[in-house]
């Protein structure tokens, strides 16, 4: 392995039969983890909804946001008991009722808050992208290494779904053949803004529009797919080309609303990744295709289809019928579903993993090392995009 990546050998991978995890062989100490939430925006509240589904695993004991109305909204989501509320996250970190902290704040704050959480001896679930820049990613890796008993999981939740584990396995087993092309989109026909109750809050609420706080569409959306490719192939982009602009919404934003990034991967799998996002068309929405000499995988967040290359079906044309156990069902387009049923939201699986990692002090699959690799990839993509020149991976980015 090029770097530290971990493959889970679980029922999830055995064919994706069990969408709800079957944990007959897991040996997990019982206990509810007391959670503090830093950042109660849409994502923070979204996570609260998900962990509220597992009262046997999590209890939200403290919440923090710099905006009063966000705190009030989040408080309503704490059904069991009223949480302690904070406007300053450092006070939440002093709260003894908190075992683990979920950080869902604007990107530029990820690093300083993550450092404080770790130094406060708490486990950390840190939203993606892990850090705002490369230097912070490398520093967070070093800090995390000195605190091996504290869990740091990065919120690339999509790949926690059994579907994405299954696709990783299919890639590893060579079902797709030699893979050379990745195609991704994450499009919308909307301005990607949140409503602002008072003009003075524009930059705080619409932080994604401003370079000072955000990595734009690449960091907030495409990072999930970039991360999956890094993880599934145990690789990283070696060379990145990009173009983009503010083409749809000339509304004072700084981050581009129309981007296209080309990633060149070298090594065992030499591939081209073509990642794009726009705010000016929603036809494709989320698109994620992985193309190999034997077939294509086409993914949504909760379902996927495998399309074998036509040549794979040729030998069937020599016969009048085929007998076999457990027949593969092909749809009209010549594809077959990767899993037999749609998965739950990735966040559900991600927090299942977070719970188990905290209980067993295990390194999560989406950890500080893979998180750094993706954060660096994202930063390089943005460097190529905004500096208008190719960006190259450097040896000192290889974190172990």
């Amino acid at each position, binding site marked *: 392995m090029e770097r530290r990546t971990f493959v889970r*050998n679980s*029922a999830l*991978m*055995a*064919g994706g*039969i*069990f*969408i*709800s995890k*079957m*944990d*007959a*062989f897991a040996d997990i100490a019982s206990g509810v983890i007391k959670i503090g939430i830093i950042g109660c925006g849409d994502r923070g509240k979204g996570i609260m909804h998900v962990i509220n589904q597992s009262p046997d695993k999590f209890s939200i004991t403290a919440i923090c946001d710099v905006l009063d109305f966000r705190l009030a909204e989040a408080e309503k989501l704490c059904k069991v008991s009223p949480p302690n509320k904070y406007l300053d996250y450092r006070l939440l970190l002093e709260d003894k009722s908190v075992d683990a902290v979920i950080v869902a704040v604007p990107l530029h704050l990820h690093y300083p808050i993550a450092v404080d959480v770790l130094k406060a001896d708490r486990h950390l679930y840190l939203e993606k992208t892990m850090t705002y820049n490369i230097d912070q990613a490398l520093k967070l890796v070093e800090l995390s290494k000195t605190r091996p008993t504290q869990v740091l999981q990065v919120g690339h939740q999509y790949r926690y779904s059994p579907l994405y584990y299954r696709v990783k396995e*299919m890639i590893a*087993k060579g*079902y797709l053949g030699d893979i050379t092309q990745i195609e991704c989109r994450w499009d919308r026909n909307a301005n990607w803004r949140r409503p602002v109750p008072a003009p003075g809050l524009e930059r705080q609420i619409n932080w994604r529009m401003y370079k000072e706080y955000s990595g734009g569409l690449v960091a907030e959306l495409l990072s999930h797919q970039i991360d999956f490719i890094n993880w599934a192939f145990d690789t990283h982009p070696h060379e990145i080309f990009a173009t983009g602009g503010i083409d749809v919404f000339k509304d004072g934003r700084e981050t581009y609303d129309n981007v296209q990034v080309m990633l060149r991967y070298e090594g065992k799998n030499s591939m081209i990744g073509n990642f794009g996002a726009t705010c000016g068309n929603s036809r494709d929405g989320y698109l994620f295709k992985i193309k190999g000499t*034997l*077939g294509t995988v086409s993914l949504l967040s909760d379902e996927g289809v*495998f399309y*074998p290359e036509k040549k*794979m*079906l040729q*030998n*069937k044309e*020599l*016969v*009048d*019928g*085929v*007998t*076999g*156990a*457990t*027949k*593969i*069902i*092909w749809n009209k387009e010549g594809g*077959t579903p*990767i899993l037999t049923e749609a998965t739950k939201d990735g966040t559900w699986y991600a927090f299942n993993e977070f719970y188990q990692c905290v209980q067993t002090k295990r390194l999560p699959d989406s950890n500080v090392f893979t998180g750094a690799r993706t954060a660096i990839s994202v930063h390089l993509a943005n460097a190529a995009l905004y500096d208008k020149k190719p960006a190259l991976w450097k040896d000192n980015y290889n974190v172990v």
Partner: protein
Amino acid sequence: MEKYLNIKKVCAGMFLVSICLAVIASVPARPPLKKYHIEGYSEGTTYQVTYFAPDSVIAQRQTDSLLAVLDEAVSLYQPTSQICKFNRSASGMEVNASFRILVSKALEINRATNGLVDITVKPLVDAWGFGVKKPRRYPNDVEVRALVKNVGADKVWLEGNYLHKKTPAVQIDLNGIAQGYAADLLANFCERRHVFNYIAEIGGELRIKGHQPDGEPFKIGIESIESNDITPQPLRTIIQPSDGAITTSGNYRKHLEAGGKQIAHIMNPKTGYPTQNEMISVTVWAKDGITADGFDNGFIAMGLKHTLQFLDSRTDMGAYIIYKKANGAIADTATVGFKSFMRN
């Protein structure tokens, strides 16, 4: 005179020939057979019928509804099906003709296989994660022993169209035999339409009759045994079977994994545990699908030696078996009758 007579004979002969020719010419030539193909979806899988006839005499809506009726009787995926109602019932219920035929045949095969084919395995199938509802964990020894108490052919019996169960906990699963029977229904439908050259396939179980219009026998591929359950598999071998049914049962796909062990989907009704032996796949030929499909899972549970013994003296059934040798190598074998189908 003689010559004259001869001339008369020749004339008479020519006359007869010309009459014969006229008669032959007046009989219309048999129209050429054309190939027709139907593809549909039933019993959670796809089915197809390829047939050769002068005209299109079978419509997909007919085959769809034929199979839908069977689905309504024996599908475990339809909560309103007769089988689901039976499984929920306390002591049994009236069942329809297809249901009765399937149960009656399954009970007959149960006796023939000394209990290795058993439709009452449903609680085990569910417990081991192959049913409609997925369990949260695998059963332990105590739970398996408890489940086995409700398994056994003596737990269900037919009285006319009434299917009885001994205790409310008894539940049946006809998935191991229903697809073969569905192929029979498709085949019978063809023959009722005077189609005698066809291949009917559902979920990898086939009924075959006749040949190609040029007299070539139908070729049937047997899938290779890759455990990969998503990519199209190369064919392991091609056979040219006699009229009848070809079905395959195998442990190579649709298995789960726990603690590094593979869990096969075919249950041993006696132990309550998934089958675990040298058998990888069995392809069975028999006169009809209900028989071939009814026996194939049983052969997996029976193991190689006993299956070959069982089929040794039979001419009404044959099998092609892929198995794992003691040294781990994959090997195959076939009964004498089945070998005659193999061309390569």
